[in-house]
């Protein structure tokens, strides 16, 4: 059974699923929808703070007089303006249907990326939550840094608005929400109005620490066994450093979970799809192709398997690794660098609130190189509470990087250029905008990398307020989010805004070749891809489409489980050959163990009572032939005579065989059974043997 809790949205909000495997409930990822933060007003700075405060919602309403209501109602239809944003300590939105589940029934949580971890402290602090959580070592570390950064940026709100009350915040009340513009209301409530329950006040630093203690970290391709039944392994997905796909092997089915993956990334270890080959089920959860599609006008022509059915396996595999998308990404970075250089030359500064680690690191390398080549002497700042640790960390994890970066390890060079940049004083790292060192060091124009991409939290808010009026400055945003809404509090914006999309997963044309290579028996695809990826009847695998909050029953593939029999037990087998069928059978008895995703049968501690030739068949079938019986009996020295037709009511009659010699006995042979009655044990036993020989038995 599979249930998709959320399709997510973009790189920062991965999808979320619940999957039932072998009776265990597995939750895949637990992200936060941070794009929802845009409905809050950022912390006002300087002069603006005083002005804004008059209108802010944190001021207690004495009465809600009707004038005010009508005034606000008029605004509902109008375009949003900065005053519509909620002025309060922000709450955070978790996956919409997750709060409808009883988390204590979750057995395993698999975290594929740092982004998929941001909501985890909400789960781990719930009483009764006892699931085992697995994530790669790097995902756990990066996730921890992201969460710690989030908590520290959030502090700014706390300091401004004062401590939160424990009660329901005002803005969530129904009357209040009714007054909000519809676009905003939709973010709060969701399209179907069901999402209000997904809002949570942010976790604390202690919650994060507690959460991390519960995470069991893994290396790529490290095996862990859950409950003896599930063998779980993480394999690189290529999206980011440390992100992974999952392989789950159970006694009955093998499953591959594919999150957003990149075949040839420029920093992280590449997508290890070979490891996911030949699974029974592929849960395809890379929905990135849905996000990027909207922006493309010409649209993709429909893909069918026809074009690929002729492709051999090798060709399919080859087509996955073409480097065009890699080059495309490089082009984007070059373009970005040239735009940055233009701004800098015009004495404007460049603000890059991009938190994607890979993009950030590569941009850092590219920009510094292009500054070097254009001999622009401009400082680069990285401002974030975790930047120093993050940059140091990326340089001590060569095992998690792509081949090219690993080569740097083997030749003794730093893995990333920022190591040298920091040493050469070209790159400056500060924890906050008001760190004393920054104030001494500060130079403009400059390039600043800082969080947060939602433009509501962190140093970016301060710098946007500072530069929003400068037409020479440049703001680089990641596309895919509502930039209009994001920039609302900073209007009027004179600053140039460059929106850029980065590769965040498997591109549409590669889905089919990938499935062709993986050769699963069943593929689970999102409903939204039904029209985009079409399969013909010649598919070697069946396809099921899932949609949000609908449970999909996946048919069972095998009617049997794998079982390993210990050799010593196997040597005790006493095979019987069946007369009619071409079949050998043996009775077996042992102790069944479940370990390492497999069933094992061992001969138990107790020596089996009768493993010698004395063991007798306990179950018989077939129709006994009387004449054969008599002749066998006579060979045994038993004389018998048949008395036919004692049957009641003329139906199939039971016949009775009387034995007089050597002793008295009676064999009553019926349609479904035989009764042996003899004066003593020996004779009864002999007759049984005779019967046994004319019937099939085990």
């Amino acid at each position, binding site marked *: 059974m599979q249930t998709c809790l959320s399709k997510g949205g973009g790189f920062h909000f991965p999808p979320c699923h619940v999957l039932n495997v072998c009776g265990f409930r597995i939750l895949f990822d637990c992200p936060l929808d941070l794009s929802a933060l845009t409905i809050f007003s950022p912390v006002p700075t300087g002069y603006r703070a005083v002005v804004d405060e008059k209108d802010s919602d944190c001021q207690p309403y004495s009465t809600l007089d009707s004038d005010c209501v009508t005034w606000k109602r008029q605004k509902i239809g109008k375009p949003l303006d900065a005053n519509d944003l909620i002025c309060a300590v922000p709450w955070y939105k978790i996956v919409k249907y997750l709060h409808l589940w009883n988390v204590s029934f979750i057995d395993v949580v698999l975290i594929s990326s740092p982004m998929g971890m941001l909501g985890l402290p909400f789960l781990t602090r719930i009483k009764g939550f006892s699931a085992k959580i697995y994530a790669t070592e790097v995902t756990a570390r990066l996730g921890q840094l992201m969460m710690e950064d989030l908590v520290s940026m959030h502090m700014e709100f706390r300091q401004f608005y004062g401590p939160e009350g424990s009660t329901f915040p005002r803005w969530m009340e129904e009357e209040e929400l009714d007054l909000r513009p519809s676009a905003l209301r939709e973010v709060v409530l969701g399209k179907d109005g069901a999402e209000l329950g997904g809002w949570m006040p942010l976790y604390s630093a202690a919650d994060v620490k507690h959460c991390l203690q519960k995470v069991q970290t893994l290396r790529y*391709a490290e095996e862990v066994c859950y409950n003896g039944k599930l063998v779980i392994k993480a394999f690189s997905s290529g999206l980011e450093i440390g992100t992974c796909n999952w392989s789950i092997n159970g006694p009955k089915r093998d499953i591959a979970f594919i999150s957003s993956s990149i075949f040839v990334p420029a920093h992280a270890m590449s997508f290890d799809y070979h490891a996911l080959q030949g699974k029974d089920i592929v849960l395809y959860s890379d929905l990135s192709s849905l996000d990027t599609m909207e922006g493309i006008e010409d649209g993709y022509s429909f893909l069918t398997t026809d074009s690929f059915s002729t492709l051999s396996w090798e060709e399919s595999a080859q087509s996955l690794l073409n480097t065009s998308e890699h080059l495309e990404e490089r082009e984007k970075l070059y373009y970005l660098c040239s735009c940055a250089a233009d701004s800098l030359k015009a004495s404007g500064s460049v603000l890059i609130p991009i938190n994607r680690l890979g993009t950030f690191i590569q941009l850092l390398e590219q920009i510094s190189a292009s500054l070097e080549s254009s001999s622009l002497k401009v400082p680069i700042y990285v401002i974030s509470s975790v930047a120093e640790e993050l940059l140091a*960390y990326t340089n001590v994890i060569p095992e998690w990087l792509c081949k090219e970066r690993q080569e740097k390890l083997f030749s003794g060079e730093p*893995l990333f250029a920022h190591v040298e940049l920091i040493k050469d004083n070209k790159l400056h790292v500060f924890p906050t905008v008001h760190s004393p060192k920054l104030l001494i060091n500060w130079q403009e124009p400059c390039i600043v990398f800082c969080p947060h991409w939602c433009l509501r939290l962190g140093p970016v808010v301060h710098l946007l307020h500072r530069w929003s009026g400068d037409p020479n400055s440049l703001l680089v945003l990641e596309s895919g989010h509502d930039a209009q809404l994001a920039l609302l509090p900073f209007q009027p914006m004179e600053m140039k805004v460059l929106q850029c999309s980065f590769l965040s997963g498997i591109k549409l044309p590669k889905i089919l070749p990938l499935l062709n290579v993986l050769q699963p028996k069943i593929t689970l695809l999102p409903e939204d891809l039904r029209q985009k990826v079409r399969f013909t009847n010649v598919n070697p695998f069946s396809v099921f489409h899932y949609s949000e909050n609908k449970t999909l029953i996946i048919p069972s593939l095998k*009617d049997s489980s794998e079982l390993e029999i210990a050799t010593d037990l196997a040597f005790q087998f006493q095979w019987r050959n069946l007369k009619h069928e071409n079949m050998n059978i043996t009775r077996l008895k042992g102790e069944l163990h479940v370990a390492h995703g497999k069933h094992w049968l061992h001969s138990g501690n107790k020596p089996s009572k009768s493993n010698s030739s004395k063991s007798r068949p*306990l179950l018989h079938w077939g129709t006994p032939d009387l004449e054969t019986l008599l002749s066998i009996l006579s060979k045994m020295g038993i004389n018998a005579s048949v008395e036919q037709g004692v049957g009641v009511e003329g139906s199939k009659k039971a016949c009775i065989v009387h034995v007089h010699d050597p002793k008295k*006995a009676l064999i009553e042979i019926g349609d479904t059974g035989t009764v042996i009655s003899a004066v003593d044990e020996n004779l009864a036993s002999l007759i049984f043997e005779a019967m046994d020989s004319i*019937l099939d038995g085990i």
Partner: protein
Amino acid sequence: MKARQRGSQKEIKFHSMAIECLVLGAGQQVGKSCVVVSMNGKRIMFDCGMDMAYHDHRRHPDFSRISEYGDFDKALTCIVITHFHLDHIGALPYFTEVCGYRGPIYMTYPTKALAPSMLEDYRKVMVERRGEEEQFTSEHIVECMKKVIAVDVKQTVQVDKDLMIRAYYAGHVLGAAMFYTKVGDSAIVYTGDYNMTPDRHLGAAQIDRLQLDLLITESTYATTIRDSKYGREAEFLKAVHKCVLGGGKVLIPTFALGRAQELCILLEDYWERMNLKIPIYFSSGLTMQANMYYKMLISWTSQKVKETYSTRNAFDFKHVLNFDRSMISAPGPCVLFATPGWISGGFSLEVFKQWAPSEMNLITLPGYCAAGTIGHKLMSGKPSKIDLDKDTQLDVRCQIHQLSFSPHTDAKGIMDLVKFLSPKHVILVHGEKPKMATLKGRIYSELGIRCDDPANNETVCIPSTHHVEVGASNTFIRSSLNPNFNFSKMSSEDESDSRLKDGKFMPWLQVKDERAAEGILVEEKGKRAKIVHLDEFLLMLGEKKHDIRFAYCFPINTDNLEDTKSTDVSSSSNALSVSGRSSWLPMLYIKLSDELSGGNIQYFGEQIQVESFSVSLCLKDRCPYRIVDSPPNKCEAVFFCCAWSIADEKLAWKIISILENRNYGTL
């Protein structure tokens, strides 16, 4: 006529294959580790070391024993290297580039990163200083390393469809690993060198509890129980401290990678703690560049060192400065790391010439120096004069400290590992013959595990594990995993004594979970063998069950019974016969309970049941199962009808004999 074969083995095959272990090096000696293991059709070479004590063909493992005609690609599935020490990797470039092996080679990331420098340093010493004919060139090293696939610890690597390898942290040096290798159901671990206790810069060896057929372990310290490495590290630090306090200079000749960083991290830490300001220098051969390797590989160090990466990487040596040739004769104390190790020439020799004559100075030497080097000469005794060449002689008055903290496990560590893994078999390598024999004896006598210590070029064969893989139906699995409670009552006779045995009250009713997997293994031509539950089996065959049961109807003489009963029961003869009869069954029940020890006897009113055996009153005048001749007087006998199935044959006849025993007088 009897179309039945018993004991025949059909489609299910039993491989009785063995694991074959050919020791090419480090058999009953320390040096040139190399073991070739064949299991289930795969052949893996563990380590490819060189023996530095020899200068002829004996320094290499005898590769011709792997393949007579030198077709190594076919003969070997892969090579696994445990760590970067020369006695484990020294012969690798020769084997790949000169002998022509082109298959895959596996080693950990640090080993792949650090090995080239180790090999190159060694090559230089051999060729440039001693003028030997070179066994491999620098290009050979580069080409050889290109064939290497780097692995992470705990990463499960599928070499091919059947062969899986996995590295475990071994502690010994940076990147040292033990390798778990599995083909089919057979599994072994080859340890390489390992250390079971953590030290200042590395953690202790760590491995999962695995099901193993064979453990091949090093046994350098097969009989010694050693103090911790901390003690010997402290000795080194004390010696250095004493020297610099007295204004002396310390020369530490090392190669670029490995020992240099290891010792430097010790000194840095010590300098910090003792607040020493005396300079530590790196000679030009030891660039900071080399430290870059260690910085990036910090996650392979001990927990304490690892945690420093973000604030200050422990390999970012704060106290270390670059050394200039002009400083050799500058006054004042200092510590100098200089290349090459073993003082085989170059800068370390130059410094040695200047510093050796003063008794204030200190020279540290590693545990091993190649023969023919100054280091080697210094190690043998304490010479006061050393011949630099045939014309020059040098007075050596300085102190010499030999580093003795080679990070091997001691005997306790080996025993602990063997006990922890509990393999079916142990092979000892990399040790001294007499000590290995002692350890071998201990492993057998204390742990009951068979153990071998083959000499070089010997082969050891040990049996391997196999399982037969079959399918199993869901019903079978479910029924086998369901608890099967067995209730048994204590029999009355031992009630009085045993219920209060040992002062403990034993419950009258005992419940045991006698879970057993019982089923039928079915093998059809062209199909995979499958286990089904008994109930499913006939359904599968499409056959009807033919139940064979036994029946037996017998009289019990009730004369005595009547006498004892008549007082209690009413006088009507008709009623007497009925009510009298109804009370006989309970009496049988009591009798059975008394005489049949064990067994689960149940009384259901109409009948008594023991397992499949049931007995009830037979009211028929002519019961077909009344085989026994009736007693003459029918009125005095009551008939009981029994039925049972073959499983309880013995039990049934026993009960009948109890019941037929007509002595009811005691009742």
